C-alpha cells in the first residue's frame, strides 16, 4: 500500500493540469473572460454600451484625432457664426419674438452633447464605444456558448446513456432518431428551429442545444456500450444495484471526463455557430449585441476603411477561442490516464 495521500481521479487530473504552464495561462485568460461576462451581466461594466458617446466611427484613441477620417476632426465643417445685425432684424418677421424665444428656451436646461472624437478602441457607426460593446457582446456570446453546450451535453449524455446502456429495441429507436436527425442538413435544421422558436437569446441557446447534441450522443453511447460489459458493472449488478444506479452512479463517473471535454469543445463550437447564425440574421435580436453581430456589422465599415471594430472583435474572440481550445486539449490530456504515462 502506498503511503502518500490518496488522490482521487479528479485531484490527480487537476494536479497534472496545474503542472502545465500553458494550462495555467489559458485558465488565467478564461478566468478574466468569465469575470468580465459576469460583471457585465450584473451591470457593473459596459452597461451603457448602447449610448452614442462618440462621433460616428470615432477614431481609436491610440490613433489620435488627426488620423484621416472623413468624419474625423480634419474633415470637420467649420461652422459659420451667423451675426444678425439691425439691418437684418428690420426684415425678419420673427425679430420681435427673439427675446421671448430666448427667455422660454432658458426655462429648459440644455446640455450640449459633445461627442468625443476618439474612443479607447474607436467607435462604431452610431458612435458607440467599441470597448463596451465588445464586452457586452462577450457576455452574450459566452452565455450562449456555455448554456447551449450545457444543454447539448445534457441531452446527448442522457440519450447516449440510455441508448448505450439498454441497447436492444430502445437503443435501435434512439439510433434511428439520431440517423434521421443527422440526415437533415445542419443549417436547414437550425433555420427550421429558429423559425419555430422566434428570435431571442434563449432561442439561440435552444436551437444550438437541440441541434448540437448528436456528437455527444454518439460518444457517450459508444462509451456506455463499452462500459456496460465491464466487470465492475457486472459486480454492481451482482450486489443488486438498480439500472439507474448502474447508469449514473457507477458508469457516469467513468465517462465524465469525456463529457467535460465535449462540453468545452462545444462551447467553442457554439460561440462560432452563434456568429454564423447572427451573420445569417437568425441570431440574437437587433437590440442586443454579440460577437457575431459585431462581425456582421463590419462588412460595410471595411469599405469605408473603419477596421477597428473588426480588429477588436476578432482579437477578443480569437483569444477566447484559442485559449478555450488549448485548455480543452490540455484538459483532455490531463484526464486521459494513458496520456499521463508520458
Amino acid at each position, binding site marked *: 500500500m*502506498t503511503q502518500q495521500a*490518496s488522490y482521487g481521479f479528479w485531484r490527480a487530473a487537476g494536479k497534472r493540469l496545474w503542472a502545465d504552464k500553458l494550462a495555467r495561462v489559458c485558465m488565467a485568460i478564461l478566468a478574466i473572460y468569465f469575470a468580465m461576462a459576469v460583471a457585465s451581466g450584473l451591470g457593473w461594466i459596459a452597461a451603457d454600451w448602447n449610448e452614442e458617446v462618440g462621433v460616428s466611427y470615432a477614431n481609436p484613441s491610440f490613433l489620435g484625432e488627426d488620423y484621416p477620417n472623413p468624419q474625423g476632426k480634419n474633415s470637420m465643417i467649420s461652422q459659420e457664426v451667423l451675426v444678425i445685425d439691425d439691418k437684418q432684424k428690420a426684415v425678419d418677421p420673427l425679430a420681435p419674438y427673439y427675446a421671448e424665444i430666448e427667455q422660454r428656451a432658458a426655462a429648459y436646461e440644455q446640455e450640449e452633447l459633445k461627442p468625443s472624437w476618439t474612443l479607447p478602441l474607436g467607435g462604431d457607426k452610431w458612435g458607440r464605444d467599441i470597448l463596451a460593446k465588445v464586452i457586452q457582446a462577450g457576455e452574450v456570446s459566452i452565455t450562449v456558448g456555455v448554456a447551449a453546450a450545457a444543454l447539448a451535453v445534457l441531452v446527448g449524455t442522457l440519450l447516449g446513456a440510455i441508448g448505450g446502456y439498454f441497447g436492444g429495441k430502445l437503443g435501435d429507436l434512439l439510433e434511428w432518431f439520431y440517423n434521421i436527425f443527422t440526415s437533415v442538413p445542419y443549417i436547414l435544421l437550425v433555420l427550421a428551429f429558429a423559425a419555430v422558436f422566434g428570435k431571442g437569446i434563449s432561442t439561440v441557446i435552444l436551437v444550438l442545444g437541440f441541434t448540437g447534441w448528436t456528437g455527444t450522443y454518439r460518444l457517450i453511447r459508444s462509451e456506455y456500450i463499452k462500459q456496460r460489459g465491464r*466487470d465492475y458493472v*457486472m*459486480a454492481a449488478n451482482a*450486489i*443488486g*444495484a438498480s439500472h439507474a444506479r448502474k447508469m449514473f452512479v457507477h458508469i457516469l463517473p*467513468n465517462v465524465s471526463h469525456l463529457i467535460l471535454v465535449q462540453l468545452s469543445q462545444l462551447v467553442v463550437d457554439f460561440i462560432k455557430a452563434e456568429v454564423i447564425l447572427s451573420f445569417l440574421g437568425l441570431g440574437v435580436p437587433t437590440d442586443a449585441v454579440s460577437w457575431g453581430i459585431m462581425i456582421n456589422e463590419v462588412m460595410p465599415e471595411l469599405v469605408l476603411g473603419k477596421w477597428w471594430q473588426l480588429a477588436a472583435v476578432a482579437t477578443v474572440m480569437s483569444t477566447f477561442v484559442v485559449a478555450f481550445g488549448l485548455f480543452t486539449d490540455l484538459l483532455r490530456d490531463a484526464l486521459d490516464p494513458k496520456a499521463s504515462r*508520458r
Partner: protein
Amino acid sequence: MTTENLLEIKNLHVSFRLGKSETFEALKGVNYVIPKNSVVALVGESGSGKSVSAMAIMDLLPRANTVIAPESGLVFEGVDLLKQSEKQRRALCGKQISMIFQDPMTSLNPVYKVGDQIVEVLRLHKPLSKAAAKQRAVELLREVGIPDPETRINSYPHEMSGGQQQRVMIAMAIACEPKLLIADEPTTALDVTIQKQIIELLIKLKATHGMSVLFITHDLELVREIADHVVVMHRGVIKEQGASEQVFTAPKDPYTRALLACRPTIDKRPIRLPVVEDFLAGREHELPQGERSRGVLASDPIVLEVRNLKKTFRVKQGLFSHKEVAAVKDVSFKLARGKTLGIVGESGSGKTTLGKTILRLNSCEGGEVIYEGKNLMSLSDKEFMPYKRQMQIVFQNPYASLNPRFTVGDILLEPMRVHGIHDSDKDRAEHAMQLLKRVGLDEKAFNKYPHEFSGGQRQRVSIARCLTMKPEILVCDESVSALDVSVQAQVLNLLQELQDEYGMSYLFISHDLNVVKYISDEVLVMNHGEMVEYANADELYRQPKHAYTQKLLAAIPGRG
C-alpha cells in the same frame, strides 16, 4: 571470447524514466549466459524484470525513456550488441535472434493471410523469390504441425485456433533458422492441453535446428522438464541460477523454495499454503504440517441445487437470421453447505457462463436453480432481489471489477446501502473496517482508490465487498488466475479461512487443475458446454473416468 556461450548477459542495468526526475530501475545488474543448443528458463513474478531483459536483447525497449547503463553488456557470439548501431541490430533480430510473444491473437496481423506474413519475414532476411519463399512457408507450417499446410497458408489468423496461431508465430520465428529463440510466456494465454503441445513442439524444434531457447515464464513447474538452466528473478535481481536439476531438487535461495512451495500441487493438500513471506522471514520450518481432507458425503446438507441448466446465446447470421449457440447444455449439480465445488474446463467450455447464469447475471434458457426451496430462475427481478445478497461473485480480473472512481469505502458501503444492512452509514463504515481487517488490509485502505492497490490487495477488496452481504454462496470466477504465484497462495488461504469461519459454500471456477484440486471438495469437469464428469475431488483426480478428464490431467505441467 567463449565458444560455448551463445549469449552472455553481463551486468545488465536497465532503468525507465518515469517523470522529469523519477526513474525506475527494472534490472539491477543481471548476469546470465545462454549456452549453445540449450534451454534457459527465466522465471519470475510480475515486475521481476524477466521480460525486460528479453526486450533488451531484442532491442524492443522504447529508446525515448529507457536507460541502459554503460557498464552493461550483451555479448552475442563474441560481439557486444549494445555497441552496435540500430541498423545492425535490426538485421540481427528476426534472423539470428527471434521472439514469440504471449498472445498470438494480438501478435499476428489480422488483415494478412498467415502465409504472407511468413513470406514477409523470409524475404526480409533472405534473398528468396516469392515462389521459393512460399514453398518454404509451407514447409515451415508443416514442421510446426499445422495440418494441411498447402491450404492453411491462405488462412487468415482468425480462422485458426489459439494453439494454431501460436504455431504460426513459432513458424515465423524459426523461419530464418535463428540461433536463439526467445519465448516470452508462449503458453500463458493457451489452454493446458494446447500448452503441452506447444512445449513439446519447442523441444522438438530446438533439437532439429540446434538452436538455443530462452523460455520466459512465471510458472516454475512448467519448465521443470524442458529447461537445462533455470534463472530465478525477483524485482530486477537474480535470486538463483543453476542447472535445472539443482534448482528443482535443492534450491538454495529461500525465494526459489517459496516459489516451488506456494503453488498448490496435485498430490498435496496442506492445511494452509505456504506463502513467500514464510520463506523470506525464515519461518519455513514452522509451517503447519498435515493435510486437509476433503470430499462431500451424501449426508451433507445441500444449499443449492442446479437441475438441467441451459444457456444459449443468439448469434446473428446475415441480416435477418440468427442461430443459437449453446454455451451451457444440461448441467446439474448439488452444492453442499460449507463445501467447495470446483468447476474446471478449458476456454470456451462454458464454465464462466454457468457461474454467471446461476447468479442471474445472464439470462437462462432452461433448467432450475433451487435455493431455499425456490427456483431462482423463475422469479421476477424484484422477487430475486433478496436472494442476490445470498449469492455473490469474485471476478477474475481485480483491475476491472472495482469501479475506479469509487474509494474502497464507497465500494464496501454500497452493497450495505442497497440491501439496507445496518441503520446508519456510521455502523456500515464500522462493519466495513472490520471486514477490511479480516481480509488482511489496513484501515487506511478505506479512503483509498483501487488503483493504489496491487492485484492481490484488490482481490481482497473484492472479497470484502462480497462479505458485506454475508452471502451463503460465493462464486469465484477464476479469482486467483490473474494473480502471481505467491499472491495466489495468500488469496487461496484467505478464501479457505473465510469458508471455515463463515461456513460459505464456494463455486470455484478455474482452468487451473492444481488450484482446483487444492481447494475443492467436489469437481465438475466441463467441455464445450457439457458436463463431462462430476465427482468427489479425490476420486476424480485419482481415477478419472471420462477420456477428456484423463486428457486434461495428463496435460498438467510436471506430470509427464
